[in-house]
């Protein structure tokens, strides 16, 4: 079914050789350095266009615009949900150059071998990437939770023709980590009216008809499992890789809750989650950080509630498609390096996500912004979103506190289970019950 462009064909080799020759000539005549990476390809690079495809929370037009300006070649972006990105990588690899993939999606699509391994020696700030990705450890040196797909488990690969991930660090990365966050429940404090401190509250009959769950099966079932485990109904071996029995029990509990009228809705897009919350249809639900921000920006109180069981973590990175070679591969590497150089990290921090290289992001953010977003301190002044409107007034601290309090407290990771197919079947049963 799939065809992988290989550089081994006689045609590929000759074209590559010609390009390299041309590039070398340019290199000899030019030699200026901009933003750390020598711009030796400048004359020809400017004709390159790199197409990046990813979900709306990572692929943002402002970032592409700034990158194009800084780099001198054109970065084009297309928005597609993680499902669609996976499908493009697997089925139409030639239609994109860079794929923004969630780590669990990498786990799923790497074996198509449509992505090429990334040489970490060519990523200037690789060593500054937080240890979570490189070593599977929190900043304080403790082991990160391995429930679900800990990004580190799929971070390193063995080679271009190898479908397996490497358990130990190699020189080759599957993707370059870019953004990540710790997800939790969003609540309407004004309508809930009391302290919420456990995932169990999602299934509490007190909120019957006023709670909602995310309808992306792989993630929704994890949120449900957090709640079920917190309530003490079931202890999972690994919430991120349930056995059939665990899936069965989970779905049974969910179907009972649904029949008892626990859920108001199951949402699958960002906007739906915002509207459910803002309209008061729902007072407690699985939610994403920027969605909470949007609800708040409408003047409605909404909290991204830290819970004692911890967070559900996720991460996104950029993968290089296998067909990139020669000058276009150079351009792609330059773009990856630019991405980690601070501008993007600061931009994304203002939407509530973290950069894989906090050092450069913090250098670009103002001290007050850094204190608010990363250090969990109360805002010294009004905090603006990336587009300049106020999203947090002075004095209030970020929900959940500092980087280490949030990321260091992840309980499980977004994932794809071995019993994925069975789980989706049972999930459909739950939705249709």
């Amino acid at each position, binding site marked *: *079914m*799939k065809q992988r462009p290989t550089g081994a064909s006689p045609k590929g080799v000759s074209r590559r050789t010609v390009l390299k020759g041309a590039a070398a000539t340019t290199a000899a005549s030019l030699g200026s350095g901009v933003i750390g990476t020598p711009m030796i390809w400048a004359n020809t690079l400017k004709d390159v266009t790199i197409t990046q495809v990813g979900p709306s929370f990572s692929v943002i037009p402002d970032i592409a615009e700034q990158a194009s300006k800084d780099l001198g070649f054109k970065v084009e972006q297309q928005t597609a*949900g993680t*499902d669609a990105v*996976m*499908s493009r990588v*697997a089925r139409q690899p030639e239609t994109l150059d860079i794929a923004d993939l969630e780590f669990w999606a990498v786990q*799923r*699509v790497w*074996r*198509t071998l449509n992505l090429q391994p990334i040489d970490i020696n060519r990523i200037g700030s690789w060593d500054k990437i937080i240890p979570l990705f490189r070593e599977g450890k929190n900043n304080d040196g403790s082991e990160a939770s391995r429930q679900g797909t800990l990004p580190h488990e799929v971070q390193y690969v063995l080679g271009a023709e190898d479908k397996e991930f490497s358990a130990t660090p190699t020189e080759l990365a599957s993707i370059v980590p870019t953004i990540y966050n710790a997800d939790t429940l969003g609540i309407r404090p004004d309508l809930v009216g009391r302290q919420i401190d456990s995932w169990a509250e999602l299934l509490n009959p007190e909120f019957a*008809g006023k709670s*909602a769950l995310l*309808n992306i*099966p792989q993630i929704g079932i994890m949120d449900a499992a957090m709640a079920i485990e917190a309530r003490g109904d079931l202890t999972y071996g690994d919430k991120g890789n349930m056995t059939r029995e665990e899936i069965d029990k989970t779905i049974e509990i969910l179907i009972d809750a*649904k029949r008892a009228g626990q*859920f*108001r*809705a*199951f*949402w*699958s897009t960002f906007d739906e989650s915002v*509207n*459910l919350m803002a*309209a*008061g*249809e729902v007072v407690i639900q699985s939610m994403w950080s920027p969605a909470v921000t949007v609800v708040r920006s409408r003047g409605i109180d909404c909290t991204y509630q830290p819970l004692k069981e911890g967070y559900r973590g996720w991460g996104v990175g950029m993968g290089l498609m296998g067909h990139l070679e020669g000058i276009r591969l150079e351009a792609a590497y330059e773009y990856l390096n630019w991405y980690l150089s601070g501008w993007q990290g600061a931009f994304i921090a203002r939407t509530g996500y973290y950069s894989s290289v906090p050092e450069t992001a913090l250098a670009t953010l103002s001290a007050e912004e850094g204190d608010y977003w990363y250090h969990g301190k109360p805002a010294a002044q009004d905090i603006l979103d990336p587009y300049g409107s106020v999203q947090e007034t002075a004095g209030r601290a970020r929900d959940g506190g500092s980087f280490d309090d949030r990321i260091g407290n992840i309980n499980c990771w977004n994932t794809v289970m071995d019993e*994925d*197919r069975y789980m*989706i*079947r049972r*999930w*459909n*049963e739950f*939705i*249709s*019950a």
Partner: protein
Amino acid sequence: MTPFRSFIPYLQVAPLALIMILLVGIPVLTVLVTSFWSSDGIDIYPGFYLENYVEIFTSPVTIRLFMTTIKFALLTLIFTLLIGFTCSYFLVFHIQNLQTKIALFLLCTIPFWTSNIIRMVSWVPFLGREGVFNSAMMGLGVIDQPLDILLFSDFAVVLTYVHLFTLFMIVPIFNSMSKINPTVLEAARDAGASALDILLYVIIPLTRTGIALGAIFVVTLVMGDFFVVKIMSGGQSASVVSAMKNDIDQMYYAQASAQAVLLIIVVLIMISAILRVVDIRAELAR
């Protein structure tokens, strides 16, 4: 001479046949073939496997999805038929002036100048817990608790279907009714038939082609929908196609194909049931 002449009809159907083969035949065939393949969410293994069908026929979800979807289709059919027939009856038999008739008919189509999605989504702020209807009712003191059943429920789904699809019932029924010769009705009246008799024994039999056509539109539209169900039930209900879409999103194409084949068969059975009651082809040629 004769061989050539007998060839002409084939030439005449060729353009339509070509379009049908390209745009209907080949895609349906592809779906049919794919439904026997195997897929693990990334790779697709061509071959002849029955696993997708085994999965469908052994899963309790399948029958439940079809029952839900058929329930939606029948409810929508009943309401659109009642409303569509009444509207057409009024337009055809009560409005004497042709211009008024045309103007009122066009009025029916005005909501259709905006997109389906807008018309659907506009119900959400109206029916919501803090929506216009609940606020008004509570303000008037009719209810003291907001009615949750109005939104994100089967009620909301059927309401939206009726709103979206009634015109598909009005147009064919209006068309059939307009063809009824007024002298037939006069004759019936002269022969002593009551208004109810005329409705039951003259008008309904003579508009059954329109009713059947409208029913086909409505049934196929509802059976093939996933978006209205998803939004208006707040994801609480699933239809056959929404389950299919879940599979497509997860790249289980082969499994989705098998469901598509089953859906095509069920819809074909429903359509042929309608066609058994009314022979549309004979009626249209009349």
